[in-house]
């Protein structure tokens, strides 16, 4: 048994044993979970995938004369930002697109530039064109401003991503007879391709499946800088199908994360366009897991062959909210390049970058090894299985019937 305080002392003295989740698998094969728990102090994880549940708050500073952008309209490189907050605070969401974007009018749309791209440009230090329109008040008389903003001339700029780091995800196939364009990429008809989106054995929440060490307040790697877990993410759903050891076999936990965008960079936050679907943001996320005991050594050493995901039809079932799994496959099978469903061999394609995930886990390992990054005790755990969370659906309700 180790405590986070003891591990932090080792980090400060430069004596910590920190390894990536990939390395932990090999170490445990050699030493067993007991030996690995004694030897290893910290396992680093990482993931790098498109995460639509991302965005950035900014305080723009006040113009002379003042303008109340709050309640008005605001555009960053033509992409609309949310203004329904204080006078010069705005929020730019990853999926926002310019009002004149042709969208899917000529199908499939390209969605060349959106909120995710604004965020990438901003953290990369580029100048962003700002246009704001408002109605004018006695204290904020101005009605229009056009200028440029960047990392150095705004006040606060912080990422606040309401849903990142999904603990496991669907494998998408297409049972319809036409090519479809989805957030899981382009899916060939008649189940001729299967796309998946998880870092598998490097994925943070898969390696702490019961949320024993990852919780509210945990310090993390976010977008190339340092961030924190602010809350459990939207659609956090701990009560999904789990294996006998508690590892979720479908999309389960999620994280809401926060961090100073000024210290992030475009290597780990990349604006993305999904053809026929929309704009989003690739987010780099890494979480250290303290090896407090043998159980944590066991969980962090599970490999792609131990993690299962559900195969879901995005041609007919998913759009109609039919929750049906066609079958289960492991990330080991998915990463091999083919899976077999009902005797049919189907090529598999990733959406999230394993090599970037490994880069993040390695970078975080180096930060900890060099004493630059200390671990944190969660302020409060994430809600676990049996905590009473259930996922509601949106129904067309008539007031009298509620």
């Amino acid at each position, binding site marked *: 048994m180790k405590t986070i305080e003891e591990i932090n002392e080792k980090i400060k003295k430069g004596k910590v044993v920190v390894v990536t989740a990939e390395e932990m698998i090999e170490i445990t094969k050699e030493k067993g979970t007991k030996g690995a728990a004694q030897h290893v102090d910290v396992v680093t994880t990482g993931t790098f995938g498109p995460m639509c549940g991302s965005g950035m708050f900014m305080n723009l500073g006040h113009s002379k004369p003042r303008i109340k952008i709050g309640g008005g309209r605001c555009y960053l490189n033509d992409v609309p930002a949310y203004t329904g907050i204080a006078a010069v605070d705005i929020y730019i969401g990853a999926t926002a697109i310019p009002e004149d974007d042709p969208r899917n009018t000529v199908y499939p749309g390209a969605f060349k530039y959106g909120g995710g791209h604004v965020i990438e440009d901003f953290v990369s230090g580029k100048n962003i064109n700002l246009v704001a329109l408002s109605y004018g008040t006695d204290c904020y008389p101005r009605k229009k401003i056009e200028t440029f903003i960047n990392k150095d001339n705004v006040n606060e700029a912080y990422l606040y991503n309401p849903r990142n780091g999904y603990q496991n995800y669907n494998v998408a196939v297409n049972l319809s007879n036409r090519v479809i364009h989805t957030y899981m990429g*382009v899916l060939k008809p008649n189940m001729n391709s299967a796309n998946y989106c998880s870092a598998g054995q490097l994925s943070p929440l898969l390696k702490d499946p019961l949320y024993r060490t990852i919780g509210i307040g945990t310090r993390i790697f976010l977008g190339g800088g340092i961030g924190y877990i602010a809350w459990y993410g939207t659609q956090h759903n701990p009560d999904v199908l789990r294996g006998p050891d508690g590892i979720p076999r479908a999309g389960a936990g999620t994280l809401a994360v926060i961090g100073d965008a000024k210290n992030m960079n475009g290597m780990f936050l990349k604006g993305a366009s999904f053809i026929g679907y929309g704009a989003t943001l690739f987010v780099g996320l890494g979480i250290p897991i303290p090896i407090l005991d043998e159980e944590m050594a066991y969980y962090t050493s599970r490999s792609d062959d131990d993690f299962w995901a559900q195969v879901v039809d995005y041609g007919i079932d998913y759009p109609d909210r039919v929750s049906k799994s066609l079958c289960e496959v492991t990330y080991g099978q998915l990463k091999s390049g083919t899976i077999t469903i009902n005797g049919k061999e189907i090529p598999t394609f990733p959406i999230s*970058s394993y090599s970037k995930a490994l880069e993040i886990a390695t970078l975080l390992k180096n930060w900890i090894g060099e004493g630059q990054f200390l671990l944190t005790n969660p302020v409060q755990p994430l809600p676990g299985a049996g905590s009473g969370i259930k996922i509601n659906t949106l129904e067309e309700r008539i007031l009298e019937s509620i």
Partner: protein
Amino acid sequence: MKKRMILRFKRNTVDKPIVYRLVKDYDLIFNILRANFSPRADSMMVMEIEGEEENFRKGMEYLKTWNVDTEPIEQDISRNEARCVHCGVCTSVCTPEALAIDRKTMKVIFNYEKCVACELCVKVCPVKAMNVFFD
């Protein structure tokens, strides 16, 4: 030898049976991978050409007499290494497997030799790392 070439035709030559001569007079085998022809604009054709080196050279010289610009395909297809995140989305649409995943590193490898310049990767790449300059 075998090479993938882009041929660009001037607008006034589209009604001439030009590439046919590559077979007839220069004993070259060609396979058309892509063609975009219009009587009102300059046209292009992407093809794999196979034959004796000497014949290949002469064939290209013959094309020049018709003002057909020729260049190897590699010069027109590129990956922006700084933008590519190796997500793998492009591999799902690349039928000739010019873009494929190295299973050891899980990085996307780009093999120009196999590319047929269909440009599907350009359309699906989420971070716009693939560039093809045809006109």
